[in-house]
């Protein structure tokens, strides 16, 4: 378990799976994907979980559940497309309970997973992409010090419009460490 100020990252397990049908069908999956509007049955969600538990290929990532300090599951974070050879990984983030948006829960989880990627997995570089419509994530990237590395024009069809995909990267030498970031952002338990 990775302990933060507002949330902990725990192994992705039953408590999160049980919430997944509600999460996939709510607004959060639109923002966490590239603008997909998922309408999924319980059976489909269970099938995805089975594939996740028994993948065809060796898994190249680490899946965490995000829970608040009182143990409420509020989403999941992952290290994906992990390459031990190039020591590069993609980060995926989803705070699936809209009531917890905009209050630092996602940022706290992000600081934890970046620290884990650099200090435990020995990555040299982490990166992520989001659609240009997702201003909450764009703001967060700036706050946490990710560098804007590119813009794929009109990459995704979301709600009837084409939007760009925006790519951010962070090199290990640009990361001041979790403690320093907490101080800079004034993040505290509440």
């Amino acid at each position, binding site marked *: 378990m990775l302990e933060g100020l507002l949330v902990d990252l725990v192994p992705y397990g039953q408590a999160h799976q049980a919430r997944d049908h509600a999460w996939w069908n709510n607004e959060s999956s639109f923002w966490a994907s590239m603008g997909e509007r998922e309408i999924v049955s319980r059976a489909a969600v269970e099938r995805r979980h089975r594939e996740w538990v028994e993948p065809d290929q060796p898994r190249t990532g680490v899946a965490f559940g995000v829970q608040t300090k009182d143990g409420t599951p509020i989403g999941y974070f992952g290290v994906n497309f992990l390459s031990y*050879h190039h020591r590069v990984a993609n980060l995926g983030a989803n705070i699936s309970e809209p009531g917890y948006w905009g209050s630092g829960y996602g940022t706290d989880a992000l600081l934890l997973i970046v620290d884990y990627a650099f200090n435990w997995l020995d990555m*040299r570089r982490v990166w992520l992409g989001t659609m240009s419509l997702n201003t909450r994530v764009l703001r967060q990237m700036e706050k946490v010090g990710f560098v804007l590395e590119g*813009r*794929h*024009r009109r990459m995704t069809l979301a709600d009837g419009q084409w939007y760009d995909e925006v790519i951010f990267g962070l090199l290990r030498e640009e990361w001041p460490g979790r403690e320093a970031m907490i101080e800079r952002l004034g993040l505290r338990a509440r």
Partner: protein
Amino acid sequence: MFEGLLVDLVPYGNAFQQQEHRWLNNESAFWGTAGDRLIVSRAAVERWQTERQDDGARPDGGSIWFGIRSKAGVPLGDIELGYISPHHRMSMIGVGIGEPEYWGGGYGTDALLLIMEYAFNWLDHHRLWLHTMGTNVRMQRAATKVGFHEEARRRRFWLADGQWTDDVIYGLLRQDWPGREALVERLGLHPRQEP
């Protein structure tokens, strides 16, 4: 079959599969991937080919593979559309010319123009993209020549031959595609004597 000036794109079949063991172990694999130096057995190559066939049969598209064949009938390499998204109407181009003596002669460019035309006119794509490592100047020149724009540079992404090199991503929107004929003319592409 799609007929070009220097090459044709044909179904990726036996004639190409037989060359893969050699292609994957020679220098072309270094450039065709992002700096991987593959040392692979025949058995591993055969396993990959089986997996690739399964992937091509997926209902959501998966990938479409072509063999690149010179006008004289020599199998030169492969070119494919990967990560096909029917919803977002886009895919990624992957390409490798496995025979180094054919490099720099326009064969890859001719193949690119054919697969781009196929993606826009037959698959109704809205966008194409590709990526390569920062040290692959030949690929970057080819991408720019056929109209791709550099859209992203992921810094120090790949470890290749002891050095960290960027990942450079190129994109092309359909509205910026003038059509294959126009590009053949603009680039002055014409048939030539093969090596």
